[in-house]
């Protein structure tokens, strides 16, 4: 026989499950309540927004005007954290694509080949609500890039302002 389980094993397994269930319900009753009231998605969005704001506070950020000034100055490297399809369609002029969903040390090494760790970098994603730029900026900081900032307005604000863009042909 592969396994032999006693009735006692099964009973205590049930007790452990019940204990976890009770603890979970007691500690997370608000989460369960949101599920039953149909407000779970709203609550998840609110918590994610709060978490993003906390993470953003730990990184330097720049506004649309500051981003444009840095772009015109020409020394700053712009990184587009959106998916490749969005990047191909339209992106900030001279920006490189580092999709947040695929970010890895290998991809960073390939995309930023020859780029100094002291290079000023600005990361952006789709709009003010997206979190992809945060993830990529945090990853780049972990990889040793010391001058990483997030442009919080996202590509939408840049495009709407009529600032320079590129398309991949």
């Amino acid at each position, binding site marked *: 026989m592969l396994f*032999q389980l006693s*009735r006692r094993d099964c009973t205590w397994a049930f007790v452990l499950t019940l204990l976890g269930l009770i603890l979970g319900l007691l500690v997370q009753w608000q989460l369960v309540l949101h599920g039953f009231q149909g407000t779970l998605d709203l609550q998840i969005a609110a918590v994610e927004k709060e978490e993003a704001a906390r993470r953003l506070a730990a990184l330097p950020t720049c506004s649309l005007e500051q981003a444009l000034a840095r772009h015109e100055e020409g020394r700053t490297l712009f990184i587009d954290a959106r998916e490749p399809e969005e990047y191909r369609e339209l992106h900030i002029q001279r920006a490189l694509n580092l999709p947040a969903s695929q970010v890895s040390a290998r991809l960073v090494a390939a995309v930023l080949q020859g780029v100094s760790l002291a290079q000023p970098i600005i990361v952006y994603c789709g709009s003010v609500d997206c979190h992809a730029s945060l993830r990529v900026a945090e990853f780049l900081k972990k990889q040793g890039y010391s001058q990483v900032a997030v442009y919080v307005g996202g590509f939408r604000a840049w495009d709407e302002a009529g600032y320079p863009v590129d398309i991949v042909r």
Partner: protein
Amino acid sequence: MWEAFAPGMRRGIRLTSSVKRSLLLSFRLFLGAIFLYASIDKIIRPYHFAAAVEAYQLLPPFLVALTAAVLPWIEAVSAAALLVGWKPRSALLVLSALMVVFLAAIAVTMARGLDIDCGCGLLVERPVGWLALAEDGFLLLLLLGLLRALPEQSPATRIPLHS
């Protein structure tokens, strides 16, 4: 022939009881720590875990919330029991059942072609894919191996699971 390369291998190596005990203890502590660690991330960020469960698109919202609320605690309680050696076989049984559920969810999601975070815990985001499947499959094998190797709590009223 085997004797020339690894003496005793052909007949099976007999472990002394103290070595066997130490091995079982190491595996028990390792698995207990792994699952406790994995559950902590889900417990401290319940809404993040709820979003991960929701992304699988397998449950209605109220069941997503219920799963996100209780599953990490069941995992934590069982992992803690395994870690301290209280009813370890029962804890292994619960954790194995959870792993089967995780594996089924990952397999279904892969078959549906969804590209989502697996929500597996361990404080590192990983997408649903072969790596997550292999990782959970390996952990399930370890759990079942330990369940088979650990001495039974009571020889009475045994229920055979497989012949």
